[in-house]
């Protein structure tokens, strides 16, 4: 059976094609302002990548903050369910999942089947989402992709007082004026954001194994900070973590069809 999972997120729209439990195609485009257009484009990209056509799809699962725009979806997949099912798909030993995207941070606890037991979510405040590091990167005049490696090169612990992204920007500017090294500021930024995600994970409990998905998982500085704050040895991250919830949606769509 072939299914598709589409995750229409705040920044990117992702599609995954799943054939008998194996990922055979992927597509990603910027969501922009026209969500429906982004859904169409990412689906076409994934179908082409998989070498199948739309009519081969048995079911289409839709999820994400723009899931209403996924009109082709016949299975509506809850965001939390999509993330735990994705974690379970990649790592069956997963019990805690963190999903950190551009504008949302989520933590969920799941059982051995990938079912949701508990969850916490932040979609109100940019301080616990990828947007935070992006904004700080602008203040530091450092490209987003360099922020994490920069943080890794520092061993200083400078506390960030501000929680709010807007206030933290001023604080970063203040640190630059005080001649603080860029790498130390970058580490401080990652530590601050990791502590937001950790406080969310603590609310539902820290149960190994811990899996992280979402685009922010690409940031090695953030993952290291998260590991440090949680006091764990390893955080499991799948290849292409940004496709996480799309994979989950495709998995749910497949089980729904049986």
């Amino acid at each position, binding site marked *: 059976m072939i299914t598709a999972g589409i995750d229409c997120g705040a920044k990117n729209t992702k599609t995954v094609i799943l054939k008998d439990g194996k990922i055979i195609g992927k597509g990603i485009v910027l969501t922009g302002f026209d969500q429906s257009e982004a859904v169409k484009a990412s689906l076409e990209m994934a179908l082409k990548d998989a070498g199948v056509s739309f009519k081969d799809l048995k079911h289409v699962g839709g999820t994400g903050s723009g899931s209403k725009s996924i009109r082709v979806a016949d299975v509506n997949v809850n965001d939390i369910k999509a993330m735990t099912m994705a974690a379970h798909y990649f790592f069956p030993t997963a019990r805690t999942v963190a999903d950190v995207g551009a*504008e949302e941070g989520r933590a969920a606890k799941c059982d051995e089947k990938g079912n949701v037991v508990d969850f916490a979510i932040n979609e109100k*405040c*940019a301080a616990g989402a990828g947007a935070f590091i992006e904004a700080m990167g602008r203040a530091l005049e450092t490209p987003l992709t360099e922020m994490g490696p920069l943080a890794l090169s520092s061993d200083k612990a400078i506390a960030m007082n501000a929680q709010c*992204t*807007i*206030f933290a920007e*001023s604080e970063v500017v203040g640190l630059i*004026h005080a001649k603080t090294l860029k790498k130390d500021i970058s580490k401080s930024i990652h530590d601050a954001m990791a502590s937001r995600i950790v406080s969310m994970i603590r609310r539902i409990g820290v149960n190994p194994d811990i899996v992280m998905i979402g685009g922010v998982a690409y940031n090695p500085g953030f993952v290291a900070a998260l590991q440090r704050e949680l006091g764990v040895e390893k955080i499991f991250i799948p290849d292409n973590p940004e496709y996480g919830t799309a994979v989950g949606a495709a998995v749910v769509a497949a089980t729904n069809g049986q």
Partner: protein
Amino acid sequence: MAEEKKPEYWRWLETNWVDPDKKWEDAQIITAGIDVGSVSSQALVMVDGEIYAYSNMRTGSDSPNSARNALKFALEKTTLPEDKIQYCIGTGYGRVNVPMADRSVTEIACHARGANFIYGPQVRTVLDVGGQDIKAIRCDDKGKVTNFLMNDKCAAGTGRGMEVFADLLSVPIGDVGDRSLQVDQEPAPVSSTCVVYAKSEATGLLRKGLDTNQVLAAYCSAMADRIYSLLERVGIEPEFAVTGGMAKNRGVINRLKKKMGIEPMKTEWDTQLAGAVGAALFGFALTKKGKGR
């Protein structure tokens, strides 16, 4: 080639003032209050418990310098030498970094005391909307704080949030309020709490065809909502007064007034001075009691 500089829409006018009818030479007690806020700093000099001179400036990256500059600017139009000031109190976010201060007092106490002075002793609820925080303060007829609530964690509802919007929409900060009132129909308030997300939402609204004034209206309305919920929690008792920079934004204050059903008190004084006024008054009271320097 020189880089073209983007106009700074958030920037407001820095001012200083002196009362030409007062003579410091005749005064018994001269005190100063310096309020170093997160965004603006005020220095105010009182002669025998009355406002003599003040300045209102933007806070720099260095608190001690901001305090020094503010005091220098306040004294600029006077002949008063700095060493004639008998007692100086620092307040605000940077109050521990006011080098010339004899002591510091929290901005909550100073704003209540200052509002009591500039608005009159009838004031019972003071709302201070500053650069990086909102305070809802309840006080008695002496301007003594009886209860308060504040938000200093999040830019939503603060002056800084409004600055971000002024910049985004290229509208000078002083025009934001009035332009937000130039709409035929009140739009739905911006739904995102976080300023970062509200910015994206605003861009979306412009794309949907709303004009700049309508987007400003939607944001001012959201801000009034945010402020109102804090006031509601502390409990509103008339008379009601607003201090801080946001008091100058009619777009927010008019909408807040409608929600509350209470007319805010009026003053001739610059509402941003309240903290410095309170600080200078505390210094005056101490010196009068012989508890000065």
